[in-house]
Structures are given as structure tokens and as C-alpha cells.
């Protein structure tokens, strides 16, 4: 029985790998089943799936969020660029 269980049920480490893998490539039927079985028994991994998606959203937000402030480039640098162009 233990043997069958081990074959069916992945470790948490392996499960988190599958959770992130499925965002890149489709899982095999076996992997899908292993993932479902494990999640049905493990709250922490179910939570990880949630967290993984959240982290994706958060990273996206860092890069695609609207720029709220317009930061001025220091005048000194601006003048240096103008100087460089003049001397080109």
C-alpha cells in the first residue's frame, strides 16, 4: 500500500515544481493526477499554487503598473548630454 501511495503521491517539493511547470508547459496525464491527489491532501501546497500566481501578478505589476510620478532627470546630466551632442 505504501508503495502505491508513494507512486501516486509526490512530495511537496515535487508538487511545487509541477505547480510552476504547468504555467510553462502542459503537464502529462500522470503529472496532472499526481498534482490533484497531492493538493487534495495538502493545504500548504494548495496555498502555494495561490501564492505562485500572486507572485506572478505582483511581478507584472512592478513592470506594467502605470507610472504615477514623473521623475525629472537631473539638470546636470541633461546638460552633459547636450554637451556630448554638441561635440559629436
Amino acid at each position, binding site marked *: 500500500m505504501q508503495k502505491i501511495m508513494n507512486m501516486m503521491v509526490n512530495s511537496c517539493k515535487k508538487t511545487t515544481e509541477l505547480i510552476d511547470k504547468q504555467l510553462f508547459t502542459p503537464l502529462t496525464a500522470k503529472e496532472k493526477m499526481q498534482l490533484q491527489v497531492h493538493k487534495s491532501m495538502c493545504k500548504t501546497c494548495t496555498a502555494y499554487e495561490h501564492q*505562485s500566481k500572486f*507572485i506572478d501578478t505582483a511581478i507584472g505589476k512592478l513592470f*506594467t503598473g502605470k507610472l504615477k510620478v514623473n521623475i525629472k532627470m537631473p539638470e546636470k546630466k541633461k546638460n552633459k548630454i547636450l554637451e556630448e551632442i554638441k561635440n559629436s
Partner: protein
Amino acid sequence: MEVIKENSKIVLENWVHQFSDELFSWALYKTSSKETAEDLVQETFLAAFHKIDTFQGKSQPKTWLFSILNNKVIDYYRLSAKTTKKTFSISENSGYELSDGLFNETENWKNNDINPIWDQEEELLDNPEFNIIMQDCMDDLPQKWKFAVTSKYLTDKNADEICQELEITVSNYWQIVHRAKLLLKKCLEMKWL
């Protein structure tokens, strides 16, 4: 010939006055480094000056300048992914060790508790302080890993092209992203209280 060159200079000078703040803000946002942002904007204008004859007025000057800048940003990340000097980020080996450290010897979670920070997620995303911590946590990642998780937002390239740039295989790519996420989870749980 001299006349054309002088004209280009005048055009460029106008553009510097008009667009440098916007370009700078964008570069700063993308690189989180004031110095880098300044340099990238300078490079952008100089590149624009040298190839101004390829600008045919088909697009807006601003659009054209931004496309040059975006390429500079990508080059910057490509370079910093390949060189390891002057970074505070950890090595890839430490990255593997740290992410392995979340699991015990039977490869199950060392800590099964679900951190309460994940309950408030909706609000979190709009919280500027959280985003600063998120950025900090990203900066702690090994350079290559950081590039792996951010590249899809920095470029229009598909996964295959990104892998080529990082000199890794596609299967390596998702594994790196996976490891990076484990570290981000750990970092957020530690830093965000």
C-alpha cells in the same frame, strides 16, 4: 553634409529638452537605479543622433526614442545577467540551497503553516510599501534568475528567445522561474510583516 549634421544637432537638442524626463522616469522604473537610468538615457540620445537618418518621421519622435531606450534596457539586463560583478544578489548555488531549505529531508514543507500575509493579497498589490519590498526581494535573486522572471515583461521575446539569451534550455527556464518564486515567497514572508 555639415548643414545636415548641424540640423540634426538642433533636432536632438530639442528632443533632450522635451523627452529626457519621460525617458528617464521610464528607465528608472525599469532598472531601479538612478545612475543606470541616466546612462541609458544618454546612450539613447547619442544612438538617436548617430542614426537619425534612419528616422523617417513615420513614427513620433517620442515613440522612436522609447524603442531605442527599451533596447538599451534589454541590453543592460542581458549584460548584467552574464556578468556577476558589483551585485548584491546571491549566487545561483546559494539560490538552490536556500530554496531547497524550505523542504525537509523527505522533501515536504519544513513549515506547513500558511503565513497570514497571503490572506490580504488583494490589497497588497496596491500598497506601495509592499511593492518596494517586492522589488527588494527581486534584487536579492541571482541575476540570471531575476532576468528569467522579469524578461517576459521587459521584452516581446518568446520563451525560446529568452532561453537563448540566457543560454539555458526551456526546461531549465521554468525550473529557474520556479526556484526564483520559492525564494520570493520566502523573502516576502520574512520582510513583509
